[in-house]
């Protein structure tokens, strides 16, 4: 029956393995975090350094996109199994979001 939860008691080996895997993963997360901080720093510096807007804007947008991907795939585990539908819908949303922003930038003013 769907509501039953089949609990599985891990053997010690399994347990240790799971722990280790989790710890490894956590170390990865910290790295991810460091990258995010780094990207943020670059973005702020780029702007403060006062490069040409045509260069900076696409670049910081790219950095933002990378950060989001990091959040989604590492912090929010979107690469894990069981996230297929979730990512399908999230990407559909992102697509519609992109189209919306695009039209507002192009055909709202004359």
């Amino acid at each position, binding site marked *: *029956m*769907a*509501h039953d939860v089949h609990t599985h008691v891990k053997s010690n080996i399994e347990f240790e393995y799971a722990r280790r895997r989790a710890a490894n993963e956590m170390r990865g997360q910290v790295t991810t975090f460091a990258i995010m901080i780094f990207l943020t720093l670059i973005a702020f510096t780029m702007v403060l350094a006062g490069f040409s807007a045509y260069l900076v804007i696409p670049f910081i947008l790219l950095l933002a996109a990378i950060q989001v991907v990091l959040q989604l795939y590492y912090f929010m585990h979107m690469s894990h199994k069981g996230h297929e*539908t979730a990512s399908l*819908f999230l990407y*559909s*949303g992102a697509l*519609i979001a992109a*189209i*919306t922003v695009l*039209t*507002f930038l*192009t*055909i*709202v*003013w*004359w």
Partner: protein
Amino acid sequence: MSSIAQKKGFGATLWDYLTTVDHKKIAILYLITGGFFFIVGGIEAMLIRIQLLKPDNDFVAAGLYNEIITMHGTTMIFLAAMPLLFGFMNAAVPLQIGARDVAFPFLNSLGFWMFFFGGIFLNLSWFLGGAPDAGWTSYASLAISSPGHGIDFYALGLQISGGGTLIAGINFLVTIINMRAPGMTYMRMPLFTWTTFVASALILFAFPPLTVGLFLMIFDRMFGANFFDHTMGGNTIIWEHLFWIFGHPEVYILILPAFGIFSEIFSTFSRKRLFGYSAMVFATVLIGFLGFMVWAHHMFTTGMGATANAIFAVATMAIAVPTGVKIFNWLLTMWGGSIKFTTPMLYAVGFIPSFVAGGVTGVMQASAPLDYQLHDSYFIVAHFHYVIVGGVVLGLLAGLHYYWPLMFNTMLNEAMGKITFWLFFLGFHLTFFIQHFLGLLGMPRRVFTYGEDQGWDLFNAISSYGAIFMAAGVIVLVVNIVMTIAKNVPVGRDPWGDGRTLEWAIPQPVPFYNFKQIPLVRGLDTYWIEKQEGNVEGMTYAEPIGDIHMPNNSIIPFIMSLGLFVGAFGALYNGEQPWAIPVLGLGLIITFAAMATRSLKDDLGYHIHKEDLLNEKGGKH
């Protein structure tokens, strides 16, 4: 715990419905409320047609007329068509996929009550100083300058009911993704489930822009913002985009479930498997996808520039292709079948030419330069009533007759059903066909009157007389419903005799836990397969009888929605009444307190025990 309703007192029944989280009862709530609003919207339509019956008529005044059309459009779309569809989805989808319940029974109830209170709030405008009068599209410049509170009622009412819709959409998505019975793969799902799925996805993505648009409108009107005030740097075109980014998918949210209902009916009463099932599924998804790429076809005359117009024109036309695929697959489903002209089938058969006629005028409008002529003329009114009435409403009426025995274990009278059909169908064509020509002859829409000197008298009169037939049809339907309820003759399982999908395999009346044992789905049209193999049970089971987990009833959804309803009055009278802000606060406190109660109090539901299940006789097979 017996599913056969014991005779309960009125109070107890009322309480039961206020607190229910059972999708079958929520379906009935949607049906009643949606039906009520359909009558309200229909009466408004009749007032429109009476006013336009003859030139220079003064049956309703200019300002009042605008309120009537606005409320007619808004009521019909948000408060009648969509909720009625939700009604059928709730009634049929969980049963079609072999689920005991929806994924979020509590949210299901919350969605309904938010819609309910939003709808009531909107309609209270009639009694509290005037209804909204800027059209259902409520274009910003007019809406911002509209005096009185009409537009505020519109924005707040739709905000509340829109929230309910979003919740309902997510609920159906998760239900369909997670709650399918073993064997019910995506490619075995009945088409109604598929269209519910895609329509729900459209809701998920289309309602947020509406939410934002409405908030901007609320802030502008009630809290001093300047989004749409061009003297302050605002821009009214933003509203048009936000509205149509929502508005166009909205029309597919309406039509897709109707397509689903028709798909079920065509294959049932042709006794034949749906022709090109996978193409149908693909077409549904494609329509949903393309539905998001075309909204600006409502804005061809806004002045977006040639390139934007050209792109959106071509994208719009593309939708004709998957829709055509559906039409031809339905035709081929009937082809070679054994067609029985029951009332639902009559509606389905009537739907094809009506919808095709409406669809092809849509493609004509998609041709931007031609739309410069057609836009905001009666041609548009004709187009969308052809697709909406000829598609959605016929679908709803078909669904009503088709699913009535599933929902109530009785059958609407077939003879009266057919009378309703013919009256409604003929009246519909009479009313709206002629309107194409009115548009071509230069009649703009949303005009409260027209002069004698313009040559539109005869066609308008014909159109108005047609509406009388539709009203007569609806009245026969109401009589039919009342008589059926009064007679209350149970019909049992699979009353149409040709049921193919799981919902018809379930005993009647449907037990409150739906399936005693979760079924094992062995193919498309499972029930048909089981019947062909002579299985009297109607289904193969995936599990032995065991305890069933059920959710508890709850009054909290009702209270949460009530809080929003109360709070909306506060927002509405902000800056005008001293009590406004306190009332807004009070409403929000009610809502949040109810929400906190919900999260602090564990609600684990209860179990129906195996022994009780075994003892229960349940419905008849």
